[in-house]
């Protein structure tokens, strides 16, 4: 039977550029598992804002990813991301290594509807050397030579995240996690899962409005209790480090990953 998660998942199509949040910033794991269970999407280009965790590792393990643009992928305290590391080593995915503020700069360029953002740093790094899409130019406002890197705008097709609450109009409370808003501003479609849907208007009270992403930027919302699990959700629950370690151990091999996914699937989906 189709439910709200399916309705959200249906927006994600093969080949899309999907922006995903940092592991402590509201990872939509329930939606991710649903995408994997549906099994109809491949060739995703993931943009980690600015790093990735379990979500990225699982999507790679499930064979749904072609490219990952990121500043890092790891399982945090549980160690390296096994399916990501394996896929990079074997060349099964294309990796676009970045640095955190460069990813923020690319999204900001999209938010500001400009073709690029300048950024300091990066010069002389092999990150820069390996990014043909990033250009170095001399700062035209400087009298002397002053090389600076230009990061092209990053336009995700879809941004996905999990947040504490939304109201009936589709306004989403993100609190201080404003990179979630940045993802939504930059993306064409934004899909949000939440712990709860409130009956009040989040925009009507200045206190809640200050931490709210307006419905204007939100394509669709679905309820997903503990929807970030086993990642944590700030102010709601901590990461389940036992589960993350269990995954880390299991996913060391492709077979172990498959077994893990089959076994834990029914709990969530």
């Amino acid at each position, binding site marked *: 039977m189709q439910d709200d998660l399916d309705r959200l998942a249906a927006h994600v199509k093969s080949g899309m550029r999907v922006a995903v949040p940092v592991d402590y910033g509201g990872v939509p794991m329930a939606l991710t598992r649903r995408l994997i269970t549906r099994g109809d999407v491949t060739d995703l280009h993931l943009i980690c*804002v600015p790093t990735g965790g379990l979500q990225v590792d699982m999507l790679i393990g499930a064979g749904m990813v072609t490219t990952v643009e990121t*500043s890092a992928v790891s399982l945090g305290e549980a160690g*390296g991301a096994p399916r990501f590391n394996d896929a990079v*080593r074997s*060349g099964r995915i294309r990796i676009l290594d970045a640095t*955190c*503020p460069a990813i*923020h700069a690319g999204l900001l360029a999209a938010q500001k509807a400009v073709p690029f953002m300048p950024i300091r740093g990066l010069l002389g790094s*092999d990150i820069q050397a390996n990014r043909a899409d990033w250009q170095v130019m001399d700062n035209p406002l400087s009298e002397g030579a002053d090389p600076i890197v230009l990061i092209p705008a990053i336009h995700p097709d879809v941004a996905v995240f999990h947040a504490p609450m939304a109201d009936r109009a589709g306004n989403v409370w993100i609190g*201080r996690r404003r990179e979630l808003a940045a993802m939504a501003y930059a993306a064409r479609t934004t899909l949000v899962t939440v712990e709860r849907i409130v009956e009040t208007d989040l925009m009507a009270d200045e206190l809640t409005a200050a931490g709210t992403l307006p419905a204007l930027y939100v394509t669709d919302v679905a309820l997903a209790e503990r929807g970030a699990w086993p990642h944590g959700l700030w102010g709601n629950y901590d990461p389940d480090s036992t589960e993350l370690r269990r995954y880390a151990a299991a996913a060391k091999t492709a077979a172990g990953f498959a077994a893990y996914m089959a076994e834990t699937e029914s709990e969530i989906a």
Partner: protein
Amino acid sequence: MKNPPATAREILIVTIARLLHGTRHVAVGAASPIPAAGAMLARALAETAGEPRLRISILGSVKHNFFTNGSTELFDCAGQGRIDAFFLGGGQIDGAGNVNLIGVGAYPEMKVRWPGSFGSAYLYFTIPRVILFREEHTSRVMVEKVDFISAPGTSAEGVYRKGGPYALLTGRGLFMFDKDKPGFRLESLHPGQTLEQMHEATGFAFDHAEKPAETAPPDETTLALLRGRVLEELGETYPDFAAGFRTETLGVEPKEVTT
């Protein structure tokens, strides 16, 4: 009853606190209890000495989070010159201060792949005192030349650069970075370490005195501050680490530094 002498870990923490002296705002990575402890000790010492308040931002922590503008704010804040010190690790660190957080072998399909460069390629350019901190000091970490430069130690003339390596602190000793050379100079060996061992464990050449100094242990006041107030503060963010630390320090199987 006299306090037990400082452990190896305490020596690291105290050394970090010394390196942070005079700073106003220190940022610490999420899973970095030793740098966090060093920063908390520096803050307590500054307060005791009546010096300006030291602010500590611990990334990913809710309690020690001075930011309200999302994960971009750390970088903006660093760019604005509002962060004086930061810690960087490194799967490989070389004698030119280059840091590799990407992996071992030929990029991109490397033999070993690490998580990635995080914000290093920006923060290394913008924060004046970047302290390279890695407990493991072996020739596989301290290499002659890194396989991949996540963040370069120095930059060509004319490149905008407000920050960079300040010191390299490992389980074996403390180095200070000389950006004009560029390279590291051994400042002190931790108790129990010899210069010979240091050369053997280090893949790059470094300057040193003929007889390098020994890293100074903390005085009684500092040690008391660390084991009291700082340990308590640390426990709020890193409960497991603080518990282990307490056990180590107060006696069960003490790995004490022989001074």
